[in-house]
C-alpha cells in the first residue's frame, strides 16, 4: 500500500498498519470532551451501529493487510453491555483476527471482571483506562462518572487480566490545585502502570467546561502554574523510570509502547471505521462523517477526503515526528528544504529547545512544553 511500505525495515513497527474502530457511545458525556459520542439511551441504536459497522468493514476488507494493530476507541467501547460488547469483538475479530497489538479503551466504571474476561477471551492484549485523575474534585470538574476509588479497583482488576495496560491522565485542568496533581501522581507512583498517557488539558470550544471558564467560574492555569505541573508530572514519571517516547506518552519498558499510536506518528497507513473515524492511506487523509444516523443508513459512503497534497505530507511529517523521542529525520526531508529546516533547527538548538543528533532533530524536555511554536518554526522552513 502506497507510501506506507517504502522505508520500513524488517521487524520495525513502522511497517505495521493500523485499524481503528470508533464506538460512538458513552454512559454520560464528560464536560471537557468534544469527541464524537452520544449518551447511550436506546439499545436499538447500538444494534444498528454494530450492523452498519460490519457492513463498512466488509466493504473495505482487504485480505492481504500484512501486520496491523487494532484499536477500539470512542466514546467508551465498554459502555456497551456485555452482549453488545461481545458482538462488537466478534465482528471485529472476524475481519481482523490476528493483530500484533489489540487495545480497547475503557472507563473504570464500565469495566468489570466479566468484561475484562471477555476482552481477554477475544484476544485483546492491552486496555487503556480513562482515569484522568485520582482527585475526586478534579474528576467532578471533568464530569467523569467514576471516582478515584472506582479507578483504583478497576486498575487492580485489570492488572490481573492484562500484563500491559495504560492509564490516561490529564493535568492542568481549570480549577485543579497543585495538591490535586501531587495527590494524583502519588497514586500513580503506587500503581506503577506499564504505560501512562499524560495529557495537558486542552480547552475545547463549545464544551460545558469552556463555558465555565468564559463565565469565570473556573480559571485556566497561568504559564507558570502550568510549568510547575508539567515539571512535576515529568519528574515523577522520570524518577519512576518511565521513558517518554512521545510528548504525552510514557512507558515503563520498550515492550509496552503503544504500537498503534506509533502508526499515527510515523505516518503509516491506518483504516478507521465508525462515525468520525479517521483514515490515512495512499497519502490521503479521510474522515468519516460525524453522524451516527447517516452512518447507520449508509456506512459505505461516509468517507470524505480531508487532505492529500505533498506539502500536507511534509507538514504532517514534521508535526508528528517532533512529538516522538525519535524525532524528525532530516533524511526524510526533500533536498530542497533540508538546509532551511536545519537552519531553523539550529536556532532552536541554541535556545535549548531541540537537540540535533546526527541527522535527527529531537525536541528537549524544555522544548516539549512549547512544542507548537517549535513545529510552526520548522514549518516556516518549508515555505
Amino acid at each position: 500500500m502506497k507510501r506506507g511500505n517504502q522505508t520500513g525495515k524488517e521487524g520495525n513497527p513502522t511497517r505495521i498498519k493500523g485499524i481503528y474502530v470508533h464506538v460512538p457511545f458513552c454512559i454520560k458525556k464528560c464536560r471537557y470532551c468534544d469527541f464524537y459520542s452520544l449518551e447511550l439511551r436506546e439499545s436499538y441504536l447500538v444494534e444498528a451501529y454494530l450492523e452498519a459497522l460490519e457492513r463498512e468493514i466488509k466493504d473495505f476488507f482487504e485480505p492481504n493487510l500484512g501486520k496491523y494493530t487494532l484499536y477500539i476507541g470512542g466514546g467508551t467501547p465498554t459502555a456497551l453491555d456485555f452482549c453488545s460488547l461481545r458482538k462488537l469483538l466478534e465482528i471485529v475479530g472476524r475481519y481482523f483476527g490476528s493483530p500484533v497489538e489489540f487495545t480497547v479503551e475503557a472507563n473504570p466504571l464500565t469495566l468489570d471482571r466479566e468484561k475484562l474476561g471477555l476482552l481477554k477471551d477475544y484476544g485483546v492484549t492491552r486496555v487503556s483506562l480513562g482515569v484522568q485523575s485520582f482527585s475526586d474534585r478534579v474528576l467532578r470538574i471533568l464530569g467523569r462518572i467514576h471516582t478515584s476509588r472506582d479507578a483504583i479497583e478497576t486498575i487492580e482488576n485489570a492488572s490481573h487480566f492484562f500484563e500491559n495496560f495504560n492509564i490516561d491522565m490529564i493535568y492542568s485542568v481549570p480549577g485543579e490545585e497543585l495538591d490535586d496533581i501531587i495527590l494524583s501522581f502519588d497514586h500513580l507512583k503506587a500503581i506503577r502502570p506499564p504505560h501512562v498517557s499524560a495529557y495537558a488539558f486542552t480547552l475545547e470550544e463549545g464544551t460545558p467546561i469552556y463555558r465555565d471558564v468564559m463565565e469565570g467560574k473556573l480559571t485556566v492555569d497561568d504559564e507558570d502554574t502550568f510549568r510547575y505541573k508539567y515539571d512535576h508530572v515529568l519528574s515523577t514519571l522520570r524518577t519512576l523510570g518511565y521513558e517518554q517516547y512521545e510528548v504525552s506518552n510514557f512507558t515503563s519498558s520498550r515492550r509496552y509502547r503503544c504500537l498503534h499510536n506509533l502508526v499515527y506518528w510515523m505516518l503509516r497507513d491506518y483504516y478507521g471505521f465508525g462515525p468520525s473515524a479517521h483514515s490515512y492511506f495512499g497519502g490521503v487523509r479521510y474522515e468519516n462523517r460525524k453522524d451516527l444516523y447517516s452512518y447507520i443508513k449508509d456506512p459505505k459512503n461516509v468517507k470524505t477526503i480531508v487532505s492529500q497534497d505533498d506539502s500536507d505530507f511534509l507538514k504532517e511529517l514534521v508535526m508528528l515526528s517532533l512529538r516522538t523521542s525519535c524525532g524528525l529525520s532530516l533524511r526524510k526531508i526533500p533536498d530542497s528544504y533540508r538546509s532551511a529546516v536545519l537552519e531553523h533547527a539550529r536556532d532552536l538548538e541554541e535556545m535549548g529547545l531541540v537537540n540535533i543528533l546526527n541527522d535527527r532533530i529531537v525536541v528537549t524536555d524544555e522544548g516539549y512544553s512549547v512544542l507548537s511554536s517549535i513545529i510552526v518554526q520548522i514549518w516556516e522552513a518549508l515555505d
Partner: protein
Amino acid sequence: MDRELIRNFAIIAHVDHGKSTLADRLLEKTGTVPPEKLVEQFLDKMDIERERGITIKAQTVRMRYNARDSRSYILNLIDTPGHVDFNYEVSRSLAACEGAILVVDATQGVEAQTIANTYLAVEHNLEIIPVINKIDLPSADIERTKRDIEDILGIDASEAICVSAKYGVGIDELLEAIVKRVPPPKGDLNKPLKALIFDSWYDSYRGVVTTIRVIDGFVKKGMKILLMSTGRVFSIEEVGVFSPDPTPCDILGPGEVGYIITGIKDIRDTRVGDTITDANNPTKEPFPGFKKVKPMVFAGLYPVNPDDYGNLREALEKLQLNDASLVFEPESSGALGYGFRCGFLGSLHMEIVKERLEREFDLSLIITAPTVVYRVVKKSGEGVMVDNPEKLPDPSTIDRIEEPYVLVTVITPSEYVGNLIGLLIERRGRERKTTYIDGARVIMEYEVPFAEILVDFHDKIKSLSKGYASIDYEFIGYFESDLVKLDILINGKPVDALSVIVHRSKAYERGRELVSKLKELIPRQLFEIAIQAAIGKKVIARETIKPLRKDVLAKCYGGDVTRKKKLLEKQKEGKKRMKMIGKVEIPQEAFLAVLKHN
C-alpha cells in the same frame, strides 16, 4: 468689464463660526445657486471637509448682485482654507482680494484663529467688514462681541453687521456693505499682463485648472503665458469664471477673478503665489510674496500589507495631482519594509492625507511618529536638515541641533489658565505674554517647540479647558535645543521605525514609557526578549519579556491529524502578520505605540 463694478472679498473666521454657512447664504441671496441645489456648505466639496466642518481647498465663486444703487455688481467670493496648516494658501487668497468679511460668533467672541486671520488681512491692507454671526442664538452677546473686536483686534466695530447666517438675517445689509465699503480693484488694462495664481487643481478631463486674479492687462484664449517662478511657457486653452460652475468667457481683465486652462498636466507647474504674465510682453515685476511652500512635518507611510506598496505609490501620485504641498519619496525601513517618507504642511494635513488614502484608495496604512525638520549644525560648520530620526548624523560630529518653534496663541476663559500653563510648560513652552481681556478671558502667548504640538496637543487643550479654549500658532524660527535621538533596541538590534528625537530632559520618561508599552504589546516568544531604550550607547530603560512557557497541543487522538494541523496553521498565519525584527516578531500595534503618549 468695468472695474468699478467688481468687488473681490474673502471670508475669514475661526473654525465653526459659520463661514461656510454665510457663504451659502450669499450664493442663495444673489441667485447664484438656486435654493433647491444648495447643499449645505456648498463650497466645501470634499466629504472630509463637510465632515470635519473645515475648508481644506480654497474655492472661488462669482456672484452677480443688483445693489440698491440700481447698479449690477460682480462679487467674487474667494473662500479660504480654515486651518493654520494652510496658512500660505490663506495669505495668497487674501492677496487676491480688496476686502474681507470677518465673521465672529456672537456666542463665542473672538478666538485664536480670528486673531491670526485678522492680522493676515490687515497685512494685506484689506478693508475689513466685521460681521457678528449667530445672533439668533439665546446666548448671543452682541455687545461683548463688539468689545472683543475693538479691544482684541483693534478694529472699529461700530458698523459691524449683525447676521444670522442660519436664518438669512442681515444678508442684504452685508451685500450692500460689501459694495459700499470694499474698494473696487485697481489695475491697468494697457499694462503687460500680471496675474496671481491663488489656487490650482487637477481635473481628470481637463488637466490642471488654475484660479487667478488679474492685476494688470488681460488673459484670453490662445495667448502664450509665462509662469514667472519657473520660466515655463504655456498656451491658454480656455478662460472662464465660476458662477458657480466653470463657465467659459472671452477675456479676464484687471481686477477680475476666474480660471484658465492650459496644457499643464502637473499641478507643480502652477504654484500658488506664482505670477502669470504675457510671454510676448512680460511684466518687469512679479507679484510679491511668492514662496514655495515647504513641508513642516514628516512621517513614514507604510502599507500594512507589503503587496500594497505599488497601490500606495499610485494613490500618493493621485493625491499629489491636487495637493502640490504633499511631497513623498520612497523609503525603506528595516522594521516596516518599503514605504514612503511623506512631507506635510502640518499634523492636520497629515491626518487628512492618511484618511484620504485609506478612504478613497482603500489602503491600510502604518504611519510612523511624525517629526519636524531639525537643523543640525555640524562641527565642521556644515548645516544639515533632518526630517527623519534615522538621518541624524553621528552625535560626535554635531555642534548643535536647532528645532522649529511656533508661537502658540491660546484664548481661554480665565479659570482654565492654570491647567493650560501646566500643559504648555510640560510641552517645553516659554511664556511670551499673557493678557487679560475682560477679566473673564485670557490670551496666552507661548513659544513652544513645534515638535511638542504635533501629537495630542489640540485635544489636550480642549479637554483641559472643557472645550472652551481656542488655539492658533505661527512659526517664529529655529532655536537651539538639547535634543537627543532615542533608539529602541529589541534584543540589541535598533528598530529604525521606533526611533524618535526628543529633548534630553524628557528622554528618560519617554524611554521608560515606550519600553513598557512595547512589553505589553509584544507577545511572549520562544526566547527572552530584551527591550531597551538607549541614547547613543547608553541604555536608559529596559524591560524583559520572559520566554513562552506553555504552548502545547497535547492530545493527538484517534488519528485526527488534520484538526491539529489546522490549529498550528492558524498559529503560523498569526505569525505572518507580524513584522520580524531579527528573530523577534512584532505586532503592527507596537509601531503605533510611539504615536501616542501619556
